[in-house]
């Protein structure tokens, strides 16, 4: 490896948090113009390592070289000056501010003393075009666009800075396949220009698609470094998890019983119209669709988290009467949100409090809450989902993303609802954890519960569900049975090219 070829070199870099050594004497190098994948389990330290590079921490130890020059990266500004840009795992846009200003933050074009408004709009429009958002007015605030659009805006923002090194921390977790394709072509383009990219993802197929080389992290250390052509996905998984995982999706013998949940002509005008379907006891039903097809809205309306304009819902033949989520939950339907940070977890509360949040009424005797009664379910859940946290008292915000996701899931498993709707249950979760989560979901179904899984992860839908329903533009356009279920059929159907 020629010296000149190395864009970034980190030597013996460590970063400690109270109670954890998140990055443990890491040596990490990226060549000019390569896409370097960084993978590892949840909590392995990927984000922390990259945030160190992006100047988030002023107390890391070790040395960082950019183009063979030693640099100190104690503030994001210092990192930016070195041409380092990062797209963060957790959305980092200012909601009330316009898209244009979010994209150009810190370097708004000026004319003399004052801002050049025309240029602001034209520059941001150009960047939006690059990520396929040409239809969006850059003057509107972020709060008015959807999450996947915001993710693209984030990418546009990073591109605008003309980085030499671009770090992408799970950029595709909220994107549709099409948008992922756009992203990949952008990445290839950047590569041509000699820009180095660090790409963090839990989707191994993506990595084989886009990366040139890959580094594997485990427990804060580097455990492997390969050219992509020299390695197989099995090998990577083994390095990540520390053991080999042979079979991703065990074939489950579904024991499907009576109709459990029956949705009749449900509509929320402007979001989804006339949706009808049944879910049976012991069944796992997938809902597939492109981002924005109205899947989440449908689920939220079913549990009355959002209003409904028309239609009925029956649970085991009885009309669901609850007018708010809490009443519907009591009748036996629960929904796990896709927005872990903003709606799923109370980040400033402890693991224990989050785990048991939905269970409070069950754990209470009359009006009195019994903490003792929560101990056992909590222990069981932590074990079942293999949640790794410094302690049950630590704040959830200090957990890695994947572990947060597990806490969120555990919160819903805890109440054992008759019907559980899971919205993107494994978003941002590592392969090992994903396996656990899948097993848990299957367990639930095997015990006679009904599960609805909304996921953009097609292999997950194919592997997990007994049948899958397709949503497009707010309508149910049909379902695909287990035998026909494959990534291709799903994709075709969701895009409106398959059967309907």
């Amino acid at each position, binding site marked *: 490896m020629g010296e000149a070829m190395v864009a970034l070199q980190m030597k013996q870099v460590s970063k400690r948090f109270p109670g954890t050594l998140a990055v443990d004497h890491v040596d990490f190098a990226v060549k000019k113009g390569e896409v370097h994948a960084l993978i590892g389990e949840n909590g392995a330290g990927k984000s922390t390592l990259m945030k160190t590079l992006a100047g988030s921490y002023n107390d890391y130890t070790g040395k960082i070289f950019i183009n063979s020059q030693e640099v100190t990266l104690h503030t994001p500004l210092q990192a930016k000056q070195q041409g380092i840009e990062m797209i963060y795992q957790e959305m980092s846009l200012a*909601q009330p*501010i316009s898209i244009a200003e979010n994209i150009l933050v810190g370097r708004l074009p000026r004319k003399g003393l004052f801002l050049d408004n025309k240029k602001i709009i034209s520059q941001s429009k150009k960047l939006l075009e690059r990520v396929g958002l040409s239809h*969006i007015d850059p003057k509107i605030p972020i709060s008015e666009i959807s999450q996947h659009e915001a993710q693209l805006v984030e990418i546009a923002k990073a591109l605008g800075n003309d980085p030499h090194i671009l770090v992408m921390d799970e950029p595709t977790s909220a994107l549709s396949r099409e948008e992922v394709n756009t992203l990949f072509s952008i990445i290839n383009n950047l590569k041509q220009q000699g820009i180095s990219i660090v790409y963090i993802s839990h989707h191994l197929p993506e990595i084989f698609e886009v990366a040139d080389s890959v580094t594997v992290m485990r427990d804060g250390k580097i455990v492997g470094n390969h050219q992509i052509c020299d390695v197989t996905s099995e090998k990577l998984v083994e390095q990540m998890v520390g053991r080999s995982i042979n079979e991703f999706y065990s074939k489950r013998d579904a024991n499907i019983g009576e109709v459990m949940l029956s949705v009749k002509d449900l509509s929320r005008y402007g979001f989804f119209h006339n949706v009808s379907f049944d879910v049976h006891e012991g069944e796992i039903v997938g809902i597939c669709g492109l981002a924005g097809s109205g899947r989440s809205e449908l689920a939220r309306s079913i549990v009355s988290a959002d209003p409904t304009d028309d239609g009925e819902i029956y649970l085991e033949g009885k009309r669901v009467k609850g007018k708010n989520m809490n009443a519907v939950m009591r009748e036996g339907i629960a929904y796990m949100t896709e927005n872990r940070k903003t709606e799923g977890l109370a980040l400033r509360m402890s693991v224990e409090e989050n785990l048991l949040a939905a269970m409070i009424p069950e754990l209470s005797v009359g009006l009195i809450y019994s903490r003792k009664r929560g101990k056992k379910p909590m222990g069981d859940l932590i074990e079942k989902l293999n949640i790794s946290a410094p302690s049950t008292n630590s704040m959830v915000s200090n957990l890695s993303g994947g572990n947060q996701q597990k806490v969120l899931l555990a919160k819903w498993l805890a109440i054992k609802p008759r019907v559980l709707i899971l919205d993107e249950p494994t978003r941002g979760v590592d392969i090992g954890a994903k396996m656990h989560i899948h097993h848990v979901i299957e367990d639930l179904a095997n015990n006679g519960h009904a599960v609805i899984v909304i996921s953009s992860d097609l292999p997950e839908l194919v592997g997990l569900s007994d049948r899958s329903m397709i949503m497009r533009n707010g309508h149910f356009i049909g379902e695909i049975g287990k035998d026909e279920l494959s990534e291709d059929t799903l994709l075709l159907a969701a895009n409106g090219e398959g059967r309907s």
Partner: protein
Amino acid sequence: MRKVKEKGSKGISYFVDKYRIFILFAILLIISIAFAPNFFNAFNLTSIMKGASLYIFLAIGMTIVMICGQLDLSVQSVMNLGAVLVIGLRTWSGFGWIWSILIAIAAGAAMGLINGLIVTKGKIHSFITTLGTMTITSGLVFLYTHGGSISTEGDFALGDLMDQTLIPLFTLRVIITVVAVLVFSLILNRTRFGRAFYMVGGNKDTAWLAGINTNRKITTAFIISGSMAALGGALFAISQNSAVPNMGTKGISPLMVAIAATIIGGTSMAGGKGGVFKSFVAVLTIMIIFNALTCFGTGYEVQVFANGLVLAAVVLYEALAIYRADKIKGIRTELLKEVQNK
């Protein structure tokens, strides 16, 4: 690629929402002109603006601080500090006016700096911090004046100049006030320096990751707030030829007026939204309400009531607007048409 209509369509409700303070202002002004006796004449309009001047200086700072997602409860004490310092330095210490004013502003800025440092370095909520410094500053003010007030002892020259109507309707003090509003509006809207306040309030982490020194930005906001409050107090004291150490300790205080106006003007307490000019119009709106009610000869209780009602209406309106927006957020118009066609 899915087809989406360009977002942010500018319907009537959008217009009302964006310009609501101007609409409110216009409506109240027209009602007052039409019905309130002795309201619509140059003398009274000037008087309204003179009265507004003090609150506007507080509202300027309050707005910028709120845009950063913070709150400054100390503005009123700092205003009193500016007032007693400018007169005290002049009368007791024999400084010239310029120096007195500059030192008063500097003292306000210093209080702002302290607020900013406690909020950013000590990481204490600004509500708490400024509640504490409010008490401290008010103690300092009393200590300086021994609990009494200070006057210029018959030196009315500058005070008279301040109250002179230089342009029809505008006294010198009002002109300074309006200039301050325009300058800060310009800074906030049209400079990088100003936009950064919005970014910090909109999302502190984003701003920090974008290389904005968020702590410095917040501290700057408090410094602006402190110095504007002190300047407002100083100008008021000069035109009054005297300074009172305890303004606003009873009744609807200037602090409450400033907070109310900032909110009524559309600045969000959550940060990232708002503007100085709107707060300015909001102060004028409140002043019109007070003035017109006095013209009608109503008692003070009606004024308190009216002030509360306007504030309540605005807060409720805002809450309902967000509620509505949340409900239709992400609604797909082409899908809606489907229902309408049925």
